[in-house]
Each structure stands twice: as structure tokens, then as C-alpha cells.
């Protein structure tokens, strides 16, 4: 039951985020076009990685193929990202998945694997 609620909460959060996106500013509008390529989980993972690696303001854009190294992260950042993913999605990620956190799409894949299990 708890996990069900969590999924709803996640969904609501993402919906709210999309609603809040500014559209007037041309520059931001362009970003929005790029962000729309991401699904809900991808968007959430992206925000979380941006926050942990302090990506914003560095002129770096997180893409599906981005690696942790591209974004200025290291093995300790990977641990922080893992922990934040576990908190955000209320999942437990086993040690053997750590390797996949090394790039953005790997992290998304891991989250989807475990979030799906809980649903």
C-alpha cells in the first residue's frame, strides 16, 4: 500500500513540475523541448543528478548518454546518487547494480527495474 501511494506521489510531483514550466522565455522554452523527451522517471533522475553533481550553471546538459565522469562525478558521487534514488523512489538497490549508475540511462534503467517490481 505504501509503495502504491509513493507511485502516486511521484506521478503527481512530475505532473506538477510540467505544469510549472515557464513557456514565455524563449531560452527556457527550448530547454522544455529537450526535457519533454524524457519520461517521468527520467526527468526525476535528471533533476536528482543535477542537484547532487551541481550541474546547473556549468553549461552542461544531461543527456541519455551522459556518464558520471562527463558530469564531473566520481565513485563517491555514485554512492550519493544511489542513496538519493533509494530515498526518492523508496526502493532498495542491490550492490551489483552500482556499475549501472555510472551513466544516466543506466541509472534510469535500475530505477525502472525496481520501481516496476514494487508496483
Amino acid at each position, binding site marked *: 500500500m505504501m509503495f502504491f501511494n509513493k507511485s502516486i506521489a511521484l506521478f503527481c510531483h512530475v505532473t506538477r513540475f510540467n505544469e510549472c514550466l515557464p513557456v514565455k522565455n524563449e531560452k527556457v522554452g527550448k530547454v522544455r523541448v529537450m526535457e519533454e523527451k524524457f519520461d517521468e522517471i527520467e526527468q526525476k533522475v535528471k533533476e536528482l543528478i543535477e542537484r547532487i553533481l551541481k550541474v546547473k550553471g556549468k553549461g552542461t546538459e544531461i543527456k541519455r548518454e551522459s556518464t558520471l565522469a562527463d558530469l564531473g562525478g566520481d565513485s563517491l558521487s555514485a*554512492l*550519493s546518487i544511489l542513496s538519493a534514488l533509494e530515498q526518492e523512489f*523508496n526502493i532498495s538497490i542491490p550492490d551489483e547494480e552500482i556499475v549501472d549508475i555510472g551513466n544516466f540511462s543506466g541509472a534510469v534503467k535500475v530505477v525502472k527495474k525496481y520501481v516496476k517490481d514494487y508496483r
Partner: protein
Amino acid sequence: MRKRVVVTGMGVITPLGNCIKDFWNAIVNGQSGVKNITRFSIEDFPVKIAGEITNFRPEGFFTDDKMDRLDRFSQFALASAYEAVNDSKIDVKKGGRYDIGVVLGTSVGGIYSHEKAAEDLFTRGFKFVDPISIPKVMYNSGACHIARHFGFMGPNYTVTTACASGANAIGEAYKIIRDGYAKAMVTGGADATLSPVFFAAWCKLRVLSRQNDSPQKACKPFSKNRDGLVVAEGAGVLMLEELESAKERNACIYGEIIGYGSTNDAYHLTFPHIDGEVKAIENALKDAQVSKEDVDYINAHGTATAINDSVETDAIKKVFGDKAYSIPISSTKSMLGHTLGASGAIELITCALSLNKSIIPPTINYEEPDPKCDLDYVPNKARKADINVSLSNSFGFGGNNAVLILKKLNNDEI
């Protein structure tokens, strides 16, 4: 052969300023850095004052975006080291230097990160424990961050002897250079003591001043109306260097460390004992090969607890005899509060500045003479004085005593 060891760089982070210049101006003018605590809620705490640092921004020192991986004590250590290394103008080579090391003192290391992780675990659950907690909490993290940041790959360790940590660290770094194991050492102490559980525990020891209504007047070392110490946070870092290599590169030399004495009372966990303190001072004088008559200034441990100040006074009298009455003695803690593991380092820096500027900073808040403390404590106003040899006392809980002696270099030696 014994190498001579000199101080060629200094840096501080204190409640009275985040650089040597601000710190010195404040202590010469007898200012106090003690204030009401703002870092955490102290509603039901009996003590509401501390030497809190309120204007420290790590990002002001570094462009490193990983500063949140450092506990506050490591940030203090690194920021002070930054000032000391820049001040020394030592060559920081790309690829690192094995002939420069780090010995740092700290009494409680990453206590804040420890408390934060505990709070997260107990109130929110396992998932919320910060995975970087271990490297933040570990006591050696301050020394390791300094090594990593500057590429100092020589001997590196951390000394923890409570309130004597900073002085013991400097003493050990001095021995490493003296015995030829490194050309230069970054050394000193750092403590970020204002963490809720740790501060509550200090309150429970009932050794803190409770003058909550007049924070700046709270710390009264050697004054009869003293009512306890004031906890403070900060860091002091020095660059020690072999005299010959400092001369070779025309470094600015603040003074020479000529003596170090270290003992343990083997007596009581929190009460000092005169014998251990006397022996530490005597050992330092012996190591320095100077006589009692040569000492021109003593920077006291001077915490403002009833017992520390009277036992320290007795120890000085026992070592120096009649000469004790004519040596100016002052307590830097009267102005900063007690920075615990950083205090020994900040106080040796005070000695070095005193040698160079020929001014002795005062013991402020000295209001009532105490028959048990009847020496010259340079009360309330700084004093001009030519100082050739100064001695700094540090006495820690657990009975740890560390004494350092610093001497001015004569012009013909430079």
C-alpha cells in the same frame, strides 16, 4: 644531525576573523568573539553562548564544488591551510611533493556529520543516512584533504589529545622535520565544536560559563569571578620548514620552534595535575636548551575554569620560581573562547605574531584579582614588549600536556 625548524606561513579561521590580519587586529584590541549561539536550537540548554564563527563561507576560499563532502572541521582546516601555504609561498609542484607532509590535531573530528547521520538514522530511517558520512566523520579527513588539495604526499597523520591536540600536532610535525623525515610540514589544529549533542554534553560537564547575558564578558581567565570556559570553533595552521631550505628560497620566517615537551598526568580524566604540567614545561625548556631566565612571554592554557587557572599558575610558579612573577602571561581564550583542538595552534600563532610585532595581546575580562592566581596576566590591555623567547601551554582532558617554545631568529641567522 638535528635540523632547525622555522615557521614560514600561518593561517587561521576564528570567531574573531578568518585571516591572520583580522584575527591579530581583534586580539590586540582586546575584542571578544563570544556571542549567542545561532547554529542550532538551544532553548532548554543552560548555556547559550559560544565562540561561534558566523561569517565563514567555504566557497569564498575554494572553487571546489565538492565542499559539501567535507565536515565543517575539515573546511576550517583546509581554509586555514590555504592561507598558511599561500603565506609561506612554498613551491606547490604539480605531481605532488613527498618531502612535505601534514600533521593535524583535532579533538572531535567530524562530530557534526556524525550527529547528522545519527539523527537521520534514528528519525528517518536507514535510507536517509548520508553515504559520505564515513569520509566526513573520520578524524584524519582534515589532514587528508590538505594533502590532496596541495599534493603534500609526505608523512600524514592526525593527533587527538583533546585540548592539547593542536600543540601536540605541531610538536610531532616539528620532530618530523628536526629528524630529517620531511623538509616542510603543514600542521596545526581544527575543531568545529558547535554541534548540538556535543555541546549538550559540554553543558552536562558543568564547566562552561553561564554568563548568557553578557557573552563578550563571559570568559574571565585568572579573574576571581571566573565561572568556566566558553566553547568555540576554529582552526589554526602553520607551515613549518627546515631552516636551511627556508633560507634557500628566501622565505619570510616568523620564528624558530626550539622546544617541545609532552607528558600525561596519569591522574584524572578532567582534573589537571601540577606534576604533569611542570614536567611538560621543564621538558620543553630542556629540549630548547634555554634557561628559565630566557622566557619573555607565556601564552597560557588559561581556560577560565577555577581549577585550570590555579593549577596552571602553580605549575608556572614551580618551574620558574621568583622569575614567574615577572613573566607576562596572557590567555588568548579570554577573547576567542576555547577552540579545543585548534587552540594550541592558534595560540602558537599568537606567540609568533607577538614576537614579530613586539606586542603581547591581553587577557580580557580580568576583573578581580584571585589570591590563587597572583601572576602578571597582562590584564585587559595589550602591552608592548620585546620578546625573544615565548612559551605556549596546552593542557587537555585526559591529562594530556603539550608545551611549545618559539624563538625569534636573529638577523645574523637569517
